[in-house]
Every structure is written in C-alpha cells, then in structure tokens.
C-alpha cells in the first residue's frame, strides 16, 4: 500500500489593473510545500503534476523533494467558456491591488488516474503544510474525505459564502484538501467531477452557482459529493480538520505573522504556526521563498 501527497502546479499568468503581467509561480510553491511535507509529515512521498515547462523549472536539488514528477499537458477542449483557458479567469484581491488570474485548474478531476499512490492526499500547492495533523487520514478506512470546515484567520469576514454554493443549495466542500483511495467510490467521484466540468452551464443552473462562469474545483467536488451521498446532506465525507485560510485581501509577509483589513485600516497578529491555505498570491510567494531559503 503506497501513501502520498499529490499536488498540481501549472504556472499561471495574472494581470493587475494597469495590465502589468504577473507570473504566479505555483511550481515554486509546490517545491516549498514538498520540502515542508518531507519535514513534518510521516506519509511524505510527494507527487507533482506539472507541464513540461514546470518540470524544466526544477533544479536537480529541487527534484529530490519529489518522488514522482508527472508531466501532463492539460487539454482545453473548449466546450463552453468555462473550460476554455483564455476565459477561465478570476479577479482577486492581493493586498491592496486587484489582479486577474487565469486559472489552469481544469485538470484536477484527472487526479484519480494520475495519482501514483493507493492512498492520496491531494493538496493545493498554496495550502502550506506546517504540521503532521493530516497524517491521520491515511490511517482511516475511508475512501474519500474532503475539506468542509473553513475559517479565515483574521475572523473579520462572514464566510457564509464559504459554507454553501448558494444559500438555497448544497454545502460547499473545499477541494484544497481532498483525501482519496484507489477505489470504485473515488473513481466515481472524479468521473462525476469531470461530468460537472464538461456540463458546467447545466450544473451551474441546477445548483444555483450560475454567477460563476469560471470553473471551480470546489464547486465540482461539492456537486459530486452531493450525488455520492444520494443527494442527501450527511457528514460522511467531511474532513474533520478545520482548514484555516488567509483570504486574498489580507497579507502574510512571512509564516509567523499576518496583516488584515480592520475597519478602514490594517491590523495584525502573529500566527501560531500550522497548516494554512494562503490565497493571497504575493504572500504565498513570500512564504514559499522563506521555506526554500530556510
């Protein structure tokens, strides 16, 4: 039985409001995260899914952090705008600026067939590992566990949008942390995700997230898990660990402290080191650099 962590890293382009080009280096984040996974976790085999460019970016030393490097060229078959790489974009705050990020997230439903492990912990590469809590999932007899409980670390935002796809529909799962085994049940999960992706317009109307033209793995996995639960709401697939996250408009200059919007200005606090999903791209870059230089 092989256990390990799988990450997808396809570098992306972003533009600020002045149309300046910014590179979002997910490969660097994955390298840093792999280094931390080796340091903190017991189940620390790491597989990286990237493209040819991403593979070439790795130095021989950095390659050592990965047990498997899987090269894939995502296919954008363009059925609808949501699976077209040029339209699949999202505006997000990064500190004081707003940037537009082109998301190359459409290959995530292929994780099942790409994973070299029997038991896989699929992580976003901006979900930085700083402890061993997630080792526990490998000791369960569960086939699927997906992030459900989320908290923003400044506690300034009402995250009702993070709880449900829409206030009238199903609960939202976070594909940021997704554990699965090689099993019929997991295969079905990813097959349904692919179906949702390819029929995004239909499912977005059915589940009332038609405001989102951008393909989101969180939405696809939520729909898939809803179907797998017999279209009922249960706790069967809920990952009990809370996913702590830093939202785009807040900042984390390093892994020890963070700044957040407080009333009309900024406030700050130190951070008791633990796993964290850093959505602010500049902060994710800074933390990746800190880990790699540390």
């Amino acid at each position, binding site marked *: 039985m092989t256990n390990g962590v799988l990450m997808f890293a396809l570098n992306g382009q972003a533009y600020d409001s002045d149309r300046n080009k910014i590179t979002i280096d997910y490969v660097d984040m994955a390298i840093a995260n792999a280094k931390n996974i080796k340091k903190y976790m017991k189940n620390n085999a790491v597989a990286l899914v990237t493209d040819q460019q991403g593979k070439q970016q790795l130095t021989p030393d950095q390659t050592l952090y990965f047990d498997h490097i899987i090269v894939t060229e995502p296919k954008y078959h363009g059925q609808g705008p949501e699976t077209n790489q040029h339209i699949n974009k999202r505006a997000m705050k990064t500190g004081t600026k707003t940037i537009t990020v082109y998301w190359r997230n459409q290959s995530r439903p292929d994780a099942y067939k790409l994973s070299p492990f029997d038991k896989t912990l699929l992580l976003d590469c901006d979900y930085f590992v700083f402890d061993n809590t997630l080792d*526990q999932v490998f*000791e369960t007899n569960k086939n699927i566990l997906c992030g459900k409980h989320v908290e923003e670390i400044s*506690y300034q935002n009402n995250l009702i949008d993070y709880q449900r796809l829409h206030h009238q529909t199903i609960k939202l799962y976070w594909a940021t942390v997704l554990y699965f085994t090689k099993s019929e049940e997991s295969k079905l999960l990813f097959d349904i995700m692919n179906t949702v992706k390819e029929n995004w317009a239909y499912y977005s109307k059915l589940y009332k997230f038609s405001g989102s033209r951008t393909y989101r793995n969180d939405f696809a996995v939520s729909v898939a898990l809803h179907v797998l639960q017999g279209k009922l709401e249960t706790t069967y697939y809920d990952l009990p660990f*809370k996913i702590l996250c830093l939202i785009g408009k807040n900042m984390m200059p390093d892994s020890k402290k963070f700044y957040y919007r407080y009333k009309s200005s900024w*406030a*700050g606090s*130190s951070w*008791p080191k633990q796993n964290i999903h850093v959505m602010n791209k500049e902060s994710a870059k800074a933390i990746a650099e800190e880990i790699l230089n540390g």
Partner: protein
Amino acid sequence: MDQEFLKQVEQFSNLKTALETKKLNAFEKAKNKTIFAFDGGLFRADPQTILFAKTHDKSRDLILLDTNDTPIAITSVDQFIVKAESCYYEAMNEYHVLYEQLKKQRSVKKIINND
C-alpha cells in the same frame, strides 16, 4: 466627544483584536491536533470521549461514533484511551503555553512580532 478617549478606545480595541485573533488561531490549532485515527475512524480527543471510554461497562463492546458519524467498534479500549489522552495532553499543553505567553504580550507590536 473626547477625542483622546476615543483614541485610547481604538488602541485598546486594536490590542484586544490582535490578542483574540491569536487566541482563536491557537485554539483552532489545538482542536485540529486533538483529532486522531483509530480502528479506521477519526475521533476527537475531548474530555467527554476520554471519560466515556474510561468509564464504560467493560462487559459491553465499545462502539463509538467517529467525526463522520460512522459507528466504529473499538478493538482495544486501553490503546484507544492511551492515544486519545496523548493527543489531548499534547494539544492542550501547547495551547496552554501559548496562552500564557499571550498574557505578557501587551502591545500590538509585541503580539505581531511574538516578543
């Protein structure tokens, strides 16, 4: 209204926000650390679970609902208690140390820089 008073309130409020934010994040860390796997299920090592496991009638099988509401038959109650207690004490000791440190951090700067 007294501007000086308002300024003091604002400073106090900022300090309290920074303190409480750190406390909440430390508490979340402790709660995550109390989750452990046993006999294929995931459990939270809280006082209720530990006490129930310790005091249950040993002539009966111990079936516990895990965090996913799945009933799990505990094969070795003693090992379950050892693992639960170990998780609980480790998490709470760490939380306690951090909580005590916070008592000495009485400025926003000290909290941010963890002095």
